[in-house]
């Protein structure tokens, strides 16, 4: 099967600090790929590169056959119309109502008439259990509602690829489960390829077809949820079993850090 997303030898930096090291990943069409790892492991940076919001220091990212490092801005715009992104905090425009936020991609990228757009907006809001909230401002919504409104906006163009940054972060367990079910429902209904960045284990194992585990910017493993569960890698087992890292402490270096601050 030809991959819809292909990442080859990706390196990324923030200024002088390297955050991703030789990352490789292939994602098949219709697959739910979860990118998992602890805080600061490079998950969100990897997502930013996939969305062409950051340029890689080295390596190649291909999406739907396009190398997004060398693509023209016109081609990138066309590619982005096939991709939906749900950001961690929703990233709804605070000056627009929920309804206006959701309709924004359609108004800018299609020639549909207002009535059709209205129906599509209501349809997606209904799907996200947000019917009747279209005239509220984002500031009036709860965290879970913001995420669902962001998801409604992300799927309004019926994208082929959906990227979701931390769907469960900051949500109560019930809302988190509802969101996971919504993701599975969306895949079933629209056969989207999904890239989901999360550090929520339960959610990851429930929704993923395959999981990529990142540690300190390096790929530790890519595999099915069962393969990840049965991994011999101690760091992965620590992550799954919520154990702290057993790092050996260098006494001299520790004292030097305390005294000099270096």
């Amino acid at each position, binding site marked *: 099967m030809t991959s819809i997303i292909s990442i080859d030898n990706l390196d990324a930096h923030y200024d002088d600090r390297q955050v991703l090291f030789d990352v490789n990943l292939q994602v098949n069409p219709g697959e739910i790929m979860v990118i998992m790892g602890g805080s600061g492991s490079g998950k969100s940076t990897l997502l930013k590169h996939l969305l062409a919001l950051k340029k890689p220091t080295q390596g190649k990212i291909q999406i739907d056959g396009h190398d997004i490092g060398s693509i023209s801005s016109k081609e990138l715009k066309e590619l*982005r119309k096939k991709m939906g992104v749900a950001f961690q905090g929703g990233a709804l425009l605070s000056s627009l109502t929920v309804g206006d936020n959701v309709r924004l*991609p359609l108004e800018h990228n299609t020639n549909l008439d207002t009535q059709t757009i209205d129906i599509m907006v209501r349809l997606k809001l209904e799907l996200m259990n947000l019917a009747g909230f279209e005239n509220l401002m984002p500031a009036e919504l709860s965290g879970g509602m913001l995420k669902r409104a962001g998801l409604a906006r992300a799927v309004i163009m019926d994208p082929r690829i959906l990227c979701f940054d931390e769907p469960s972060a900051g949500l109560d367990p019930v809302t988190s489960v509802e969101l996971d079910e919504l993701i599975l429902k969306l895949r079933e209904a629209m056969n989207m390829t999904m890239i989901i960045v999360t550090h929520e284990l339960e959610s990851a194992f429930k929704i993923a077809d395959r999981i990529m585990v990142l540690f300190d910017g390096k790929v530790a493993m890519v595999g099915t949820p069962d393969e990840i569960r049965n991994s011999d890698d101690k760091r992965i087992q620590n992550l799954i079993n919520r154990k702290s890292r057993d790092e050996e402490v260098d006494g001299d270096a520790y004292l030097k850090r305390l005294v000099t601050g270096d």
Partner: protein
Amino acid sequence: MQSIMNGVSNIGGYTRNVISFIGMSFVFLLNIFKSLFSRIPPIREIVRQIQFIGVKSLPVLLVSSLFTGMAVALNLYNALIRFGSADLLGPSVAVGLIRELGPVMTALMIIARVSSATCAEIGIMRNEQQFDALDCMAVNSYRYVMLPRLMAALISLPILTAVFDMVGIAGGYIVGVVIHGESAGTYIQGIFDTVTFNDVLIGQIKSLVFAVLIIWIPMAYGYFLHLNRKAAGAAGVSHATTKAVVISAISMLVMNFIISSLML
């Protein structure tokens, strides 16, 4: 020796950052103007911004222009009366307001009310990934977010300046005619006889140039907020807003002097 080297290195780093920021800001402005030709500008957003920049600034502008005009007239009257030239009060107030005080004071009021708010709003949009979201939705943020603000400022500022001039002249009338009993005819006719089309033109050109400066600078500071990784979050927004207001005001005053010198 090491501290001197560190100092030189810091100055070098700071200079490089300033030059790089100025370069990026000019490309940013160019991109905003370029977006004008990509599609029909978002009219609804422009109207909303005109309401924010123009209409909602009117009350504060009316009060400040009235008292500025009165203060100017009061000072001028006391100076002119010593030379027996109180009949020149109308033209003096009008020329001073139309050429200098009108555009400058209006711009300062807009900097205080709009530039700070614009920088804070755009900075928060950057912090909350709203620009990333727009990029990912294939929505041109220059056209959708920046252009309406720039166009609204270009439309509103000349009108606000004209309003400031007229209310200021009325303030001068209150001081000269109503309080000090000068002739109303002399005050008004003097203005018509002295103020030329060139005076009005200079004031309006200034207001257009100021409009670009006082909206472009805060937008650039907000938009590039994320590049200063050491001052992100709420502290970053506060830092950027303060800088944007100060730089907008200084560059407006410098530009005022340049235009006045060129068009005298």
